[in-house]
């Protein structure tokens, strides 16, 4: 199990993706890219909404067995992205219709996506068969 504790802001996305890429050494390129897309969507979601307008940390735990399991924890406002996609206000109205795209992609790319609220933490877990 590898872990990364990092400030949840989009400027840190590349660091997060590099961390996951390193943690998932040995996973095929196709799988890795599918997982990286999902990781990006989840992390950017946390960066944009969990602590807004303040900032805070995200903890990312990655493990590889028969399944790749990545868990994202934040202590932001209670928010289950699987229930509802927050509108992306940075987009112009004509583009906002595809605001739910990210969560749609995560669901399609991963085998399992679960959310739970534990104390003051949001915990989102994505799971994908390793090969």
């Amino acid at each position: 199990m590898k872990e990364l504790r990092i400030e949840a802001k989009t400027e840190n996305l590349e660091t997060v993706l590099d961390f996951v890429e390193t943690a998932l050494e040995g996973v095929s390129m196709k799988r890795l890219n599918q997982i990286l897309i999902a990781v990006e969507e989840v992390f950017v979601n946390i960066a944009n909404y969990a602590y807004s307008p303040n900032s805070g940390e995200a903890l990312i735990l990655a493990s590889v067995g028969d399944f790749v399991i990545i868990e994202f924890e934040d202590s932001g406002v209670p928010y289950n992205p699987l229930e509802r996609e927050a509108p992306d206000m940075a987009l112009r109205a004509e583009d906002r219709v595809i605001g739910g795209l990210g969560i749609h992609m995560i669901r399609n790319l991963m085998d399992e996506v679960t959310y739970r609220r534990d104390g003051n933490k949001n915990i989102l877990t994505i799971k994908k068969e390793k090969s």
Partner: protein
Amino acid sequence: MTLTITKNKTENCCVLSLAGRIDTTTALELQPELEQAIDENKKVALDFAEAAYVSSAGLRVILAGEKRAKARGSVMTLINVSKDIMEVFDMTGFTDILKFE
């Protein structure tokens, strides 16, 4: 790995070759390049031969490019899209909106 954008101009067509990840960060670099290419050329091609993946932020920029091209009477085409990346365009319904070659 980040994104490297290489521009190649021939007559009326401008090819933007995208090498690396088209993600939340790099999509911001692609946006102005793509807008400029569309404004200056009747035909723009996005070459995905060296692209690793496209996230939803990348899809947004590509969709905005398609809208801009349409409004200006230009044509934007996506070329050399791998099977894996095509899956992403498929699952999001983008294959119906964009032109592939």
